[in-house]
């Protein structure tokens, strides 16, 4: 059973290096998925994750266990991604986001392309950038609407309604796909 991330960070604040290693183990794969879905290359994604953990390490003393660590971590990841985009004049539009096959190994891709999981990933990639950002945080990373609102700096009500309508839209596309099978 994994330990709550908040407890791990508090242990790390008290000087327990093993707790930090455990945090890395828990969050690195999630963060990698987060960055890859934003369209960055594999090696760049790992560099960005490294920056996230360096920032967490340097700011750990200031962390107050008020909210979930997930929100804190993805807030940092979001900021680091914005910095990365600014530095590299990298903008995301629907065409620049690579297909999910870039993320997955080539062999697995051939099998998955036909199944519903691949279709779901495709549907998500077809959404506009801001909707993808919302769904990434609210659905895939399971942050609360309030936390998403704070990270993206938009009202909670807007987050809620946009996630709701995006999910409905995507569900109807997916249902149509299943009917066509």
């Amino acid at each position, binding site marked *: 059973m994994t330990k709550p991330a908040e407890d791990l960070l508090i242990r790390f604040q008290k000087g327990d290096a093993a707790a930090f290693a455990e945090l890395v183990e828990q969050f690195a794969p999630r963060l*990698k998925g987060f960055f890859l879905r934003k369209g960055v290359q594999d090696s760049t994604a*790992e560099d960005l994750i490294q920056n996230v953990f*360096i920032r967490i*390490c340097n700011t750990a003393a200031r962390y107050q266990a008020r909210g979930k660590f997930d929100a804190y971590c993805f807030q940092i990841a979001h900021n680091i991604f914005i910095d990365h985009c600014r530095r590299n004049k990298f903008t995301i539009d629907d065409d620049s986001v690579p297909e999910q096959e870039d993320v997955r190994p080539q062999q697995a891709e051939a099998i998955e392309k036909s199944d519903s999981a691949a279709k779901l990933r495709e549907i998500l990639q077809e959404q506009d950038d801001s909707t993808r950002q919302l769904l990434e945080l609210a659905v895939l990373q*399971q942050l609360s609407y309030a936390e998403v609102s704070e990270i993206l700096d938009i009202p909670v009500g807007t987050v809620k309604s946009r996630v709701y309508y995006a999910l409905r839209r995507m*569900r109807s596309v997916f249902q149509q796909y299943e009917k066509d099978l």
Partner: protein
Amino acid sequence: MEPSLNDERQLDDFADTLRSAHQECAVSSSFEDNLFDALSETKPLRRVIQQSAFMRVAAALLIMCIIGVPAAALMGVLPLGDDKQITLSFIPAESLDESELQEMIGPLASTESVVIPPHDEYIGDRVYNQRVAVISAHNYWQRLLAPYPDSIEFAVLAGVDVVLASIVVK
């Protein structure tokens, strides 16, 4: 349109399906080693300041500048204490005669008054003007030396008189 409970439940199910389609992506085997190497190389500012005396001085100077400038500006804006306004004034010399001057600065022993000549013919009189200059100079030095002990006053005045006498003789 208010979402129905059933609709919300279906959307939650769809969200779960969507989530399960996006598995986490494993990081490379060297990721953790690279991360911990990078962390050992990266020194947070606080640690750098703690370890280096030079950085501590630089940080202290920076803080002093940051705090000092607005503080100085604030001191300039705020009225501090009740400064007494000093009014400078003067009395034109020509409006005072010798007796008024003596009233202001007190009576001086053994000073001689300069008498304004009653007749115009004295204005061009060289001897008279020299005498007036010597008396004025003597009075000036006497007033100047009044606060000092008599022995100093008399010694200096004697010297002054010798110098003045030599000027008159020339």
